[in-house]
Each structure stands twice: as structure tokens, then as C-alpha cells.
């Protein structure tokens, strides 16, 4: 017992001060991309063609980036070869609407708070059932991290629960493989109304690296009504936490 207490004192208090204090992320962390302005049509077309996951498109000659499809690749050819974009350190990426993830003029609308009645229900207590539907376990691992004492998700009243019957919403990771589709829909159906749907990670938003797989759907967009999108491959835990707190109106 004394050893445990001694070790506890030695390990110290580790819960972060977020959201009062901004987290310090590694210098090489890749967050919200900044698009280069005034690209020549040729450079824009080259950049669009270079993305293997079709995250880039041309919007009347202007470059448009779909953050829902972006994997924040370290060797992004549009950034490295065509200087069409650069990654900033900004981890605040979650949005309320799919179209808000389309970035073309460097104004990015992060997630909005839920309406008043939903906030009244869930603002101080939100229980989530997580379903991995074809994820690679990186999204799942970094959601699990939210329950460690560094993030201590429970201090915001948010918790992952085992039963969908106890849940107020579903948090989906993975592109939704054909083999997980029915289990995902069953789980969603088992959650009592009203309920929230959160798509966490590039796969759940638009299929991620599996967007062309015949064994997977392109995320949950066509299957469930999504309330919160959290981009990233996988999203940084602070990106997920920021999105959740914004949705609940706890920050922002």
C-alpha cells in the first residue's frame, strides 16, 4: 500500500489543463492545411491529379481541399511537389456539416454547438457507444486515449459505454466494411432517441484509404445522419476532444 502511494506521488498529477490551456503539439504535427493562393491553372490541375484519395478538386480553377478525405499525408505530393498547400499546427478540425469540410478560401468553419434542447439533454452528460466498422485500430486507440488520465474525458461528462441502450449517441470509426454494415445499423437502431452520430476519422467520413475498396462503403454518410465529423488519419485526441466539446457548447 505504501509503495503504491509513493509511486502515485512520484508519477504526479498528469491531467492536462485543457481546455483552459492550449495543448502543445509536436512541431511536425500536421493540422489544418493552408492552401496556396493564386495557383496557376496548371499547378492546380497537377495538385488535384496528385492526390491518391481524391481529396483535392478544382472549384472553377481554384483549389479545393476536402478535409473529410484528406489523410494529412507526410509526403503529400500536392504540398511537396506542387507547393499547393502546407500543413499548419492547428488541430481544431471537427465540423458539424459535411460541406464545412471543403476548404477553398482558408476559412474553416469548425463545429457548432447543438441546439438548445439537445444541449439541455446532453450538454453535461453524454454517453457514447463506439463502433469500429473496418477501422485499422488507430482511430480506436486514440479514442481510448481520451479515457486516460491525461485527457480524462469523464470530467466533461462524456463516457464510452458498453450497451447501446445506455448510450446517447454512436461514434463510428472505419469505412464501414460490408461485413460490419448490419452490426453497425443494428447498434444504431438499439440506441434510444434522440441520438447523436459522430464520424471519427477519414475512413468513417469518406472511406479514407479504403475509399475505392469493393469491400467497404465510403464511410457512414449514406447510412446514418451525422452530427459531428472529426477529420484525421487518425484524428489527434485533441481534435476529437475539441470537436466533442464544441458540439456540446463547452468551448467555442
Amino acid at each position, binding site marked *: 500500500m505504501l509503495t503504491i502511494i509513493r509511486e502515485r506521488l512520484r508519477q504526479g498529477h498528469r491531467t492536462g489543463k485543457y481546455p483552459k490551456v492550449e495543448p502543445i503539439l509536436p512541431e511536425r504535427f500536421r493540422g489544418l492545411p493552408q492552401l496556396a493562393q493564386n495557383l496557376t491553372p496548371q499547378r492546380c490541375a497537377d495538385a488535384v491529379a496528385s492526390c491518391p484519395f481524391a481529396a483535392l478538386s478544382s472549384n472553377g480553377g481554384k483549389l479545393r481541399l476536402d478535409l473529410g478525405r484528406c489523410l494529412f499525408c507526410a509526403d503529400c505530393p500536392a504540398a511537396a511537389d506542387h507547393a499547393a498547400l502546407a500543413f499548419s499546427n492547428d488541430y481544431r478540425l471537427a465540423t458539424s456539416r459535411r460541406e464545412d469540410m471543403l476548404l477553398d478560401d482558408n476559412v474553416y468553419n469548425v463545429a457548432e454547438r447543438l441546439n438548445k434542447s439537445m444541449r439541455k439533454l446532453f450538454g453535461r452528460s453524454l454517453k457514447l457507444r463506439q463502433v469500429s466498422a473496418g477501422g485499422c*485500430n488507430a482511430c480506436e486507440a486514440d479514442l481510448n486515449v481520451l479515457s486516460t488520465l491525461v485527457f480524462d474525458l469523464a470530467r466533461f461528462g462524456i463516457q464510452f459505454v458498453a450497451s447501446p441502450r445506455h448510450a446517447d449517441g454512436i461514434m463510428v470509426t472505419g469505412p464501414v466494411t460490408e461485413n460490419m454494415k448490419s452490426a453497425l445499423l443494428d447498434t444504431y437502431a438499439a440506441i434510444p432517441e434522440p441520438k447523436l452520430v459522430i464520424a471519427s476519422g477519414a475512413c468513417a467520413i469518406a472511406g479514407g484509404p479504403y475509399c475505392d475498396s469493393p469491400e467497404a462503403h465510403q464511410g457512414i454518410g449514406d447510412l446514418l445522419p451525422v452530427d459531428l465529423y472529426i477529420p484525421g488519419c487518425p484524428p489527434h485526441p485533441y481534435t476529437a476532444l475539441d470537436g466533442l466539446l464544441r458540439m456540446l457548447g463547452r468551448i467555442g
Partner: protein
Amino acid sequence: MNSSKPRRFRNGFVVPLAELPQLDYAIFSESLLAEVAADARIASYFGRPLADGLEIYAILAHDWNGKLSLLRTQVNGSFPSLTPMCPQLHLFERELSEQYGVRPDKHPWLKPVRFHKTWIDAADIWGRPHGKHPVPGDMEFYRVDGEEVHEVAVGPVHAGVIEPGHFRFQCHGEEVMHLEISLGYQHRGIEQMLIGGPHPSTIYLLETSAGDTTVGHATAYSQLLESLAGCEAPLRAQAIRALALELERLANHVGDIGALAGDIGFLPTASFCGRLRGDYLNLTAELCGSRFGRGLVRPGGVGFDLDGTFPQTFVERLKILKRETRGAIDLCFDAPSVLARFEGTGLVRTDDAEALGMVGVAARGCGLVRDARLHHPFGIWEGGFDTPIIELDGDVFARGNVRRREINASLELINQLLRGLPQGPISQPLGPLAADSLAVSLCEGWRGEVVHAAITDASGRIDRYKIVDPSFHNWSGLSMAMRGQQISDFPLCNKSFNLSYCGFDL
């Protein structure tokens, strides 16, 4: 004896297909069984469809010689199953049936593996409707009948934030007589998407084949491509890869010990390790911007350098982490209440582990010395790794203690790497890939050996790419570990293996 002595190679070899004899199936079988009876185990076993049948390739590992050997044959329709004589082939043969509609006759356990349609235009051997996607978990489960015998079905959706899979227990009261595991829910069709590559998306599919083993799979793939292109990654890049592999091992092992402690309600270690695991992930993020090592390992080298003040910062941060990790973990391993739960729980006998072809932490916990860093070193590990860690008991404690000791060893290895970081470039361009060739690459990921094999076509494009995640060998070990256990100990046993669903399902 009617067998053929296969040629032997070292890890990272490339062989032109024309130089590989295609054996008659009878000779192939006898040779394979003779090799396994001597000193070999199955590292990989896969098919490649031809116009007039199916080619089968067997890659055998001769650990104590540091060699791999290769056998090739061709079958058509059905062929005698080798599983009854060589149980470690059981999933590989089932996989062939599911992918190409062939039938290994007298396979004792011929069931689907991942529940997908056949990859070629062949009839489904289980007679499932043509053109329709199979229903996952739809198969005959092993069943025990008798008074007071009952069945417990769990999954695919589990209680925690974890991946999906289905577990079917045959129980007598609390005691589990048998556990059957049916996976495939995470099947994304990776191997099929790699055909015709390397595509720009290929590296991302491999980095996410098992997301917690990003560095392991990306390293195996990069080594493979480098072999096919006839070049080597610069020494500095190899050192950075080795370092990232050890960081991946540290993060996962520390997390696993925390999870084991959590499962038996020993909360101090569970809490401390949860935080420490994140600190190791953050170190990887310092290096490459991603906590999982995304973008770090690339064919030809690495994408990020450990330059400037990095090595010094790493040494300092690891010094603190080492003290805190030891404190957190020793607390748990020194507590009699913990040991009482760990010891003797989830036993796998050494013979069973060997027969099932188990690898990695789970095999080393059963006293089997299986570590690709020692037996099949590649690049910087050549002669540099000589301390595999084994435990003899095959229980939860043994698997936990292998991790605990490997954590200490990894910290030491990283220090060594940081002290002797070779100078020079971190990557070099790859030339075209050798045509009509087969290449194999092994890498000791944190769970165990990751085996990648590729066959190229006449234009040097990938014609078949085979991934074997260590979990593929080890899930059967978990089934064995549950025999005679209380069903309430399943979470603890499962955690002590901590296998990958997506790495298995691909």
C-alpha cells in the same frame, strides 16, 4: 523418399520465378512436411491464380539457420489437405479455399476465414449464393452437446472501444470447453487492392493494414520493395526505422500491461501506463508528426530525420520515461494479488504453440525463441540483436512478463541506436522493380513477425501481394489458452495476447 530439398535464402531475398521449380503436389507436400518435421515453420503460404489452376507458394522459416526456404506447386480443384499433419497450415488452407474456390480434401475444419466472395470466377465451396456477399459469421460452429452444456456468443460489437469479432464459447457452467473465433468483420480487401501496384495509395493501405503496427508493416513493405529494386536503404534510415519499431513496441507493451492491470482491477498501474503509453506515442509524433508513425517509413528510406537536437531530447525524455515506466509496472508485478490472477491463467503448452506456428510475444511467452530481429535480421540488426526474451510458463503472467522485460530491452536498444546514429542521407530513390520475381521480407513488429511477400509480373508490377500479420498465427493460440478456463477470465486472456482483428482480416 520422394521429396525435393528446397533452396534456402536470407530475409529480404529476391528470386526470379523461372529459377523456382514447380513441384508436383505430392513432392511439394512431402518436402514441406519433411522440412517442418526437421526445423522449419510456416512463415507464409499463399496462392496465385493462373489460367489453368492455382499456384501455391510456401515460405518456410528455419529460425536457427537464419534462413527461409521456398516451395512452389500447382493445384486444380481439390488436393489433399496438409493440415492434419501440419496444423499450423489450417488457416492458410482455409484462406485458399475462400479466395480461389479450391478444396483441401480432409481438412478437419474447413470454414470461411474472412467472409468475402471468391477472388476469381470460381464456385464458392460452401455453396453460398453466387454473386451475393456472404454473411459474416454464417458457418457451422464447433458445438458441444450435453446436459448443462451451454453456448455463449459474443460480438461482433464488443463492450469497449475495440475492433469487432465474434467469439463462440462452449461452456459447462463457468468452465470453457472450447472457444471458436470467427473474424472477417474488418475485411477491407487490402491484398486485392495492391494488385497492379505499387500505386500511390499502396503505402497507406499497408500502414493501415494494422494501424497499431504501422511502422512494422511499412518497414516490411519498404524492405520488400528495396529488395525488388535491388537497393538498400541508407544506414541512417535503417537506424531510424529500428528506433521507430522499438518505440512502437514500447507504446504497445506499456499500454498492454496497463490494460492487463485494468482487467483485474489493479488501477494504479492501469492509470499510470495509460498515460505513459501516450508519452511514447508522442515521441513518435515528435519524429514524424503522427503518433502512429504514419509517413515515417518509406521505400528507399525514411521521411523524417532525427537531426539537430532530436537525439539529445529523446535521450533525456526517455530517461525520465524509463524511471516512470519501471515504477508503474513493477508495482503491478510485485503485488501478490496481481500474481495470483496472472499465474496459471490462460495456459498454452509449448507443444501447442509450436504446432500452431505461433510467433512473437505469445510464442516467446511459451518458451519458443522466435524473434525475427535475432533469427532473420535485416539491415541494421545484422548481428546487432542477441537478447531474445522468453518466459517458459505460457500463462498470462508469462506473456505479461515478456512484455515487461522487452520494455527494458527496447529502452536500452533505443539508447544504443541514438548513441550510434550513422551519418549520411535518410533515403535514396528506388529503381524499377525486378520483373517476374518473388521477394519476401520479415520484420519483428511489436506483436511478432510481420511477413510480406510479393510476386511481380513481366512489367515489374505487383501481381500478388501477401501479408501475414502475427495475429494470423496467434488467434488459434488464444482459443487454446481458454480451454479449461473460467469464461470470466476471457478478457484477461484476450488482453494478454492483444491480437489484431484488422491485421488478420486485412
